[in-house]
């Protein structure tokens, strides 16, 4: 790994994003619009909306970053640029961390915009500070990004990459406890939820929303989220092969 190449790769991904203002607009505008939609769907149930608002602020960047990174990485694999880069001094981690930095920054921006709208315009109030919620939501974005990078190795086409979203993300969302408390689910599903990374990302946000403090359980949730992110990046590095058949 070479810091010069990692930074160059992150800058290159930013250059590419800059050429695509529509994607940037969608990244930043869609989450607050969906939050607003949710607010008025739950029109008479402001308590319910308030309870799920903070976790939702993490869900949107998780989903979107998963999708955007898996497709971007797939393009790198199918366009021949990956093979070319594999003949250069670029290390696998340079590529993954380069993407990680660029999309991580986008994830933080996205979470910040959505949180500002939620707290400023939609009257969401949590026990926790807005800063802590944004930080945890950005953590969700980075987790989604790392998982997206990893699964891109298993997609042969962009169609397949898009299908990984419902296949990998929806079950995690359904089981996280966002829709139904996990205690009310069948026992086998609770076990399953316990091994899915989004469960911990959800818990961290739900806990700070309710208690307002960064306690040891939140710290544990955050540690699991960061651990899985690093694991996914490491597994992603394993799927990048210098030699192919």
């Amino acid at each position, binding site marked *: 790994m070479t810091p010069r190449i990692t930074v160059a790769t992150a800058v290159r991904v930013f*250059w590419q994003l800059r050429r695509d203002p529509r994607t940037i607009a969608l990244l930043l505008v869609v989450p607050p619009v969906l939050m607003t939609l949710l607010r008025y769907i739950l029109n008479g149930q402001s308590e319910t909306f308030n309870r799920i608002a903070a976790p939702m602020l993490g869900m949107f960047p998780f989903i979107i970053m998963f999708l955007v990174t898996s497709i971007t990485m797939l393009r790198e694999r199918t*366009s021949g*640029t990956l*093979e070319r880069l*594999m003949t*250069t001094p670029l290390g696998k981690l340079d590529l993954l961390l380069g993407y990680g930095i660029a999309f991580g920054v986008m994830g933080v921006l996205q979470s910040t915009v959505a949180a500002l709208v939620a707290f400023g315009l939609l009257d969401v109030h949590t026990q926790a500070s807005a800063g802590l919620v944004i930080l945890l939501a950005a953590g969700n974005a980075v987790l989604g990004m790392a998982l997206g990078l990893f699964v891109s190795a298993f997609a042969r086409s962009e169609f397949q990459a898009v299908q990984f979203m419902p296949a990998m993300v929806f079950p995690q969302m359904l089981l996280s406890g966002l829709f139904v408390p996990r205690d009310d689910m069948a026992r086998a599903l609770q076990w399953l939820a316990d091994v899915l990374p989004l469960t911990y990302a959800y818990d961290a946000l739900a806990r700070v929303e309710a208690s307002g403090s960064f306690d040891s359980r939140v710290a544990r949730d955050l540690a699991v989220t960061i651990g899985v992110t690093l694991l996914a990046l490491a597994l992603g590095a394993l799927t990048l092969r*210098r030699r192919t*058949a």
Partner: protein
Amino acid sequence: MPAASDSAIQVRRLSVDRGGTRVLHALDLDVPAGSVTGLLGPSGCGKTTLMRAVVGVQIVRSGEVTVLGRPAGAPELRDRVGYVTQAPAVYGDLTVKENLLYFARVLGAPAGRIPQAIATVGLGGFEGRIVHRLSGGQLARVSLATALLNEPPVLVLDEPTVGLDPVLREELWQTFDGLAGQGVTLLVSSHVMDEAARCHQLLLMRDGRILASETPEALLERTGTTDLSQAFLAVIHAQEEERVR
């Protein structure tokens, strides 16, 4: 065949299987240092597979490939062997200049080399153009320019002149000649026989085998022909007769 110490690339008993079929059959060849060696043969004969083995991105079944005294693909070769793939491996959503800046940083080449690389491939005035708006030939030249940035001692170029204007093609062959004069070793593939005359050394390839490895003059003399297409045909006929016997 030149002595081993004079050759920049040595291939010994190289066999490669792809999809359960043998595509390279125990190849032996030497590419002399400081020369333009043309790898000629019909589409599908294994030229690209051989080149991929030389740059170290091909999984090989058996045999040895040595480049500058090191096993092909060794980390210390990654900034000493430039590889230009047949399909241009550049970022379509970046400008010509941005593509070159990124590859310069990856290869550790000073940005000051960029104008020279652009001039060499005849893309002066196109620096600010978005790459996917360029023609196929221009795209190929951007890809070639990225490999020239760090002035590597070995260049592996897969059909670099396909679809180019005849004047530009002539200029590129002169560039290759000039680079060889400075001691650079070039392995250039082509399926156009009239380009064979521009090479110092020829490798004629068919069905995953090397049929001839000699200078264009020696090939003409040995086959008693006056042009290289005829010579290639003569070599194929001779080989088939031998097989029948």
